């Protein structure tokens, strides 16, 4: 399943940001609009890597789907950073 939301939180002494829930699924709109350009990029990649376009699409889809569940949290004495992909 592709990511739907990303949660980003940054908290430093100078800058406090409440946790942002970013609707990642909305990125499908520009992706669909740019699909001809993306297709050309994929074809170029397929030619350079001597593989099929389907394989490249499968790899890209795998990476996109694999991002779901990623969690990165860094806490230092004066800063906190959180990135979660849901």
């Amino acid at each position, binding site marked *: 399943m592709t990511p739907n939301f990303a949660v980003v939180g940054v908290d430093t002494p100078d800058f406090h940001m409440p946790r942002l829930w970013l609707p990642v699924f909305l990125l499908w709109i520009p992706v669909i609009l740019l699909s001809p350009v993306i297709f050309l990029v994929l074809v170029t990649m397929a030619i350079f890597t001597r593989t099929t376009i389907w394989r490249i699409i499968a*790899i890209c889809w795998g*990476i996109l*789907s694999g991002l779901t569940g990623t969690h990165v949290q860094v806490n230092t*004495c004066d800063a906190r950073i959180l990135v979660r992909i849901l």
Partner: protein
Amino acid sequence: MNENRRQILEMLAAGKINAAEAERLLAALEDGPVANNGVFAEKAQPKTKSKAKYLRVLVEAADKGGPTTVNVRVPMQLLYAGVRLAALIPPQAHAQLDQALSSHGVPLTLSQIKPENLEELIDHLEDLTVDVDAKQDNTKVRVFCE
């Protein structure tokens, strides 16, 4: 016919047990340990190991200002996808990459690595647990799969 099954049926025929008990015993015989010449042995069933879903990296360090913690959770599916991404490296770049890796102390030949080898590597990664405890720096690193 299995010796145990025969014994159960004989007991049923002799009236020592009723039909319901015989059924329960036969069901237990199929699920549980199997007798072999009077010695019970574990039935040769592969253990269902729960597949790890995430690679977790935890770092705890005590800096001058205070403690620093890093908590990273990477889905195993992303690792698989990354492995497949390596297949997209053009063949012309393999020699350069091999040279660069060996110059950094990693004598690896990328062209010899097949996707099935890498998938096997990631499968074995599920049993990995690395604990680093540096007492001088008060740093603890844990890498494990969950």
